[in-house]
């Protein structure tokens, strides 16, 4: 188990759900893992899980919407481990509702954009200099299948569409420096976030209806895709939008994919 041997990976939002799944998998494959999360309880628990399994990890309390937090995250990681080879931008929120756009408040819009899009901007901004210095790196952004098709969560989809575009621009700008940037677009994954959304009952349709694979995804499904993109196995892959969605959106997404 050494597909990420020698790498130093920062994973945001690693205190829960998909981020925790990615952090555990990366540690299992030999990476040093920096668990960055706004929530100390969740973050510390992820670190404990990794250490108990024999991996190396430490927790950094970071609100990705605060530039100074993110700058400190990058600095601390360099001081502690000498480099940053992989950045996984996973921290994110979902309003969990399907309000139509004329019903969305400015505050709700700003909150989603701040965490899901500006947070990714900050993390890239402060980590990329370290990757340039190192002579390469891999950025894996957790967008969403919502970025690829037509769906009910307007602000959320817009924020994730922004992540997808930002990913492609980073791939374009930094390719010659051997820095790759790709996004994973998960479909429904069973996590505290999606359980909360389902529990509050505001989804107009069961999100599972449109899938080929007859189940919700698990954090591990996303973790394996992230592992592929973080590792040198994907050294010729950049600017990809990798769907890990149980075959969902199979009609709607095509217009974006085969243009």
């Amino acid at each position, binding site marked *: 188990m050494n597909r990420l041997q020698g790498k130093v990976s920062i994973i945001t939002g690693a205190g829960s759900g998909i981020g925790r799944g990615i952090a555990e998998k990366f540690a299992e494959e030999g990476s040093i893992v920096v668990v960055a999360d706004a929530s100390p309880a969740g973050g510390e628990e992820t670190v404990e899980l990794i250490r108990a399994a024999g991996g190396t990890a430490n927790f950094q309390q970071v609100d990705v919407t605060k530039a100074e937090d993110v700058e400190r995250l990058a600095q601390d990681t360099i001081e502690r481990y000498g480099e940053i080879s992989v950045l996984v931008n996973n921290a994110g929120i979902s309003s969990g509702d399907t309000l139509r756009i004329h019903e969305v408040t400015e505050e709700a819009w700003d909150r989603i954009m701040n965490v899901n899009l500006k947070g990714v901007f900050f993390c890239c901004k402060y980590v990329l200099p370290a990757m340039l210095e190192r002579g390469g790196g891999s950025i894996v952004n957790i967008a969403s299948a919502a970025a690829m098709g037509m769906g009910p969560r307007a602000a959320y989809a817009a924020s994730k569409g922004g992540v997808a575009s930002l990913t492609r621009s980073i*791939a374009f700008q930094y390719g*010659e420096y051997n820095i790759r940037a790709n996004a994973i677009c998960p479909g429904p994954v069973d996590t505290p976030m999606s359980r909360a959304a389902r529990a509050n009952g505001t989804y107009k349709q069961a999100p599972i209806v449109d899938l080929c694979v007859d189940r919700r995804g698990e954090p591990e499904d996303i973790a394996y*895709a992230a592992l592929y993109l973080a590792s040198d196995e994907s050294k*010729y*892959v950049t600017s990809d939008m*990798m769907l890990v969605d149980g075959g969902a959106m199979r009609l709607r997404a095509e217009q974006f994919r085969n243009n």
Partner: protein
Amino acid sequence: MDRLTGKTSIVTGAGEGIGRAIARMFAHEGAQVVIANRNEAKGKETVELIKDAGGQATFIRTDVTDTEDVKRLVEETVAIYGKLDVLCNSHGVYGLDTREISDLPEGDWDLMMDTNAKGVFLTTKYAVPAMRTAGGGSIVNISSIAALAKSAQPAYAASKGAVNAFTKGVATQVAEFNIRANVISPSTIETDRRTELAQSAQYKNDFLAHTSEDEAAGSVEIINRVLPGFGEPDDIAYAAVYLASDESAYVTATVLPVDGGTTRTRTD
């Protein structure tokens, strides 16, 4: 290395290039690999390479455009290894239609459609029942950037576009049997065949006729790509291992570009 342990895999076009790299990587990850291609000498060479490295492989001579051949391929695979879990279609012909479409002989069109598109149909047709018996499986089809890009090889692009559409269609049909189907979409990968082709006088004439002088100085594809250099067969092989293995259990009906970040031509 055990990401494909116990999986019986057919790899077509595995006598050279990308197919051979995939076959070797599959074997390295613990799969039993059936090398299915036309050229016996090359196919057996791949088998030897795998066996020398301690892996398991068998050669079954197959022309993917021949129904009887493909039927026998699947039957013999099941007879030898007891089941079929993975089908990777890595066969293909290319480099034929770099000329103007009005000059493209009908026979060249047919050859590309028969090999690239119909060959995938036939292997899938016979593999699916065997995978159903096995309780599930994964189909990985090697398509091309030409299907996503605005390619100056329209007939080749059409044959690969058929592969992409067919794969997604099949994926939706066979999902209920726990079978997944995905496409890998490579751009230029440095293989012996590709190097030979790029050096041939006809390719230069035809291909470069559509290319500006600047682009001709290097290669049009290189200029379009954000990562430096060409890809290697192993780049495709790693993607194929991911899609063949249970690591991608939640991935189906997708197209995975492994193309160095080809720009201008791709919008996904």
